């Protein structure tokens, strides 16, 4: 069994790369190739440009996104005009990107496509809603973990994380960093009541007192060095709508008044703290919760870095599985090895899968 069946349990999926060249597009193609389009109506889009043949930064060869006949896709006007498939336009939205408006079309033949969808969080949400409204079952977002991206992949119900040697060629660092991101992705949601209360707030630092009343801390930016938590003796929850950084976390940790309060951030992409600070915070009894969370379905690895360093795939998969307790896949290999976490032992078992993209299943 692969993670494809898991995906079908959700109405949206984002595929996120930890870094460029970590094999995100390969993962996306792997998923697109295997989804049962006879049963499910599927739409794909991207936040940021994707599917280009050469990497815009490193100039290395990149795989293109391959759509199957019958799939729907959202891309910019500019990329729609460059398409190399036959497709039928179903909508031209008012959503603007730097490459023109976002258009939605249905692929009438299979083929390669450049994707560049909505560039804002609200735009992405609207597009997803539109797709579900016209009866599509699954929306796939080619997500970016880029710090520059305004649209968060955390709006989707499920997620696949791509990591690899491009992120770090030191296997221990790579495993640790990936495990840290996985830990952040898995931060639990805050309770229902607070979710409703805090979801509409998109900026500022706020706190909720024990009566459930919301207060804005006006003079504070979560980025500023001068943070004073005054008049907050009765703070049940501290909410940071923007970025959570080391300095802020440290101040919260050191403030005895805030010891028992719950720290809430929008989603894991807003957390910019070092693993050390984060772990210390938790160790001393701190609690972090999020407003939006995706279910992490799988992690994929690309053991080859753009500089030519190749890590040993089996060892990498094994170590990662051990660290994150989730299935890890090397989709670059002819035979995809799936490492399934062992419940009791520390070692892992590798099952061999034969994917249809390269070989028949």
């Amino acid at each position, binding site marked *: 069994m692969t993670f494809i069946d898991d995906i079908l349990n959700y109405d949206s999926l984002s595929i996120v790369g930890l870094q460029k060249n970590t094999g995100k597009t390969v993962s996306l193609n792997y998923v697109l190739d295997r989804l049962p389009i006879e049963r499910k109506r599927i739409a794909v889009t991207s936040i940021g440009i994707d599917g280009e043949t050469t990497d815009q930064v490193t100039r290395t060869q990149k795989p293109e996104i391959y759509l199957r006949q019958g799939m729907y896709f959202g891309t910019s006007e500019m990329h729609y005009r460059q398409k*190399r498939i*036959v*497709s039928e336009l179903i909508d031209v939205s008012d959503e603007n990107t730097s490459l023109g408006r976002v*258009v939605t079309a*249905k692929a009438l033949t*299979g*083929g390669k496509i450049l994707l560049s969808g909505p560039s804002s969080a609200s735009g992405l949400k609207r597009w997803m809603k539109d797709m579900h409204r016209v009866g599509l079952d699954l929306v796939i977002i080619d997500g970016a973990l880029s710090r520059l991206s305004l649209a968060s992949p955390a709006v989707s119900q499920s997620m696949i994380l791509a990591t690899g040697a491009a992120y770090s060629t030191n296997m221990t660092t790579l495993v640790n960093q990936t495990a840290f991101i996985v830990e952040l992705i898995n931060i639990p949601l805050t309770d229902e009541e607070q979710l409703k209360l805090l979801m509409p707030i998109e900026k500022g630092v706020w706190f909720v007192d024990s009566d459930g009343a919301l207060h804005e801390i006006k003079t504070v930016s979560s980025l500023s060095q001068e943070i004073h938590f005054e008049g907050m003796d009765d703070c049940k929850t501290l909410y940071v709508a923007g970025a959570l950084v080391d300095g802020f976390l440290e101040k919260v940790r050191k403030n005895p008044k805030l010891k028992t309060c719950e720290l809430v951030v929008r989603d894991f992409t807003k957390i910019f703290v070092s693993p050390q600070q984060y772990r210390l915070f938790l160790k001393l009894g701190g609690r972090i919760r999020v407003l939006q969370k995706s279910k992490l379905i799988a992690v994929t690895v690309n053991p080859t870095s753009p500089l030519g360093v190749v890590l040993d795939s089996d060892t990498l998969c094994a170590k990662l599985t051990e660290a994150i307790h989730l299935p890890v896949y090397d989709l670059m290999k002819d035979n995809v090895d799936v490492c399934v976490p062992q419940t009791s032992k520390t070692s892992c078992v590798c099952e061999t899968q034969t994917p249809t993209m390269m070989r028949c299943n």
Partner: protein
Amino acid sequence: MRDHIESPCGLRYVFEQLELQAGYTRRWMLDMPMMRTGEEIAQSYAVLRQFADFIERVDTPYINTLQFRLQGLKDIRTTIKNLGQQAVLDDIELFEVKHLAILAVDVAERMKAHGLDQAIAVPDLNEVITILDPDGLKMATFYVYDSYCQELRDLRAQMRQNPSRQEELLAECAEIEEGVRRDLSKQLVPFAKALEEAQIAMAKIDMNLAKALQIKQLGLCFPTISKDDISRYEAMFHPQVKDALAQRKRAFHPVSLTFGQKPTLITGANMGGKTVVLKTLTLCQYLFQYGFGIPAQSADIAVKDEVFFCIGDEQSIEKGLSSFAAEMKNIDAVIKASRENRKIVALIDEPARTTNPTEGTALVSALVKVLRGDNVSLVMTTHYDIEPTDARCLRVKGFENGTMNYELVEVQDGEVPHEALNIAESLGIDKEWIETARAFLIMANSPQLNLSNSIGLDPRGSNSTPLNEEGENKTPSNSRGFRRGSNSTPCKNGGGE
């Protein structure tokens, strides 16, 4: 409309309350110039009236469906322009044209079914649909359909059977597709004008529907166009102020007013709603000249070329002007416009209020004389005593049995009411202050009384600097003890009666 939307009279508030369905309608309305002739305005209200009747005739789901359709109206002016210039449209542009055409045909049918096709004519775009829908699917989707060309159909079939040859076949297809698009664009050129008209017609429908619904929701009226340059309002109200009051569970007192040929001065107690009257008049004038429903029971409004609303307390900090300088500049613009012989309505709130009463009174009296031309309709509020011969004077009825009566009544002289102290008292302002002020007034009205031993009063601070109840509080004009110019009516009773 862009030039007037930010007027402090609250035009934006009414505009934002319109339930417009398409972003394009909004932009189109904002780009619309103000109507300046009676015919234009009459024409626009005639159309609006038909929509008002229409929403009464049909049920809510029908209106909702029409609104939902109008949400699909997009701004495709660039595409239409390209078409007009005989450019070859690409798939996205052809999609836009088809989408607009399908929408226009649908909306036109709905309009016709309810006899509104005469009010706003949507050009027939059925032929455009025929050109872009060779399979007759009536779907708002587009690609270069197989049906346009047998060769294209064959190539695409091959492509599906033989994906390895896709790239090569696509190149062949692209050439054929471009030919088809060239041909389609050519066929569509004659419809460029009709497409543009259809887009505007649908914006008009969206606008009129929204205005008609607003009239119903806010209880607005259809105005008549005044023939004698005099504007008459029965029970007018300000929607924004009304809403704000309603939120505090208080009611708005509607005001009736007629003004036009002679300058009209409104005096009256503080908090008597004088500024709100001016705001409402300005708002009504704009709403009238942009063809909205009017917030009044009935209105007969004169058409103007220009509307001026000068509200006293706007300081131009960016320009480094004091409130007085900013005000003088604004009023100066009104005077200049009045000399250009354009028909203007000027609504001026307490001019020269921030300067000393002597010069202030002089400035206001002079302004009434300067702005007396036939082309000017002036309504001005003031606390200064002005010679009534040049103007018609109205007064807010004021405090009656402890409550404010906002009604406007005609007064024969320019005497301003003296209720500031009563009102201040009702606000719970410091008693000592009020009583001391009262004592000063009594003394001021009877100069023969000795200040120090008068009726047991002890005006504190007997170093005798008269307390100034802010520039706008009224003291009789001939009271020498106060800094008051005496250029007008004789003194009546000062103070709160």
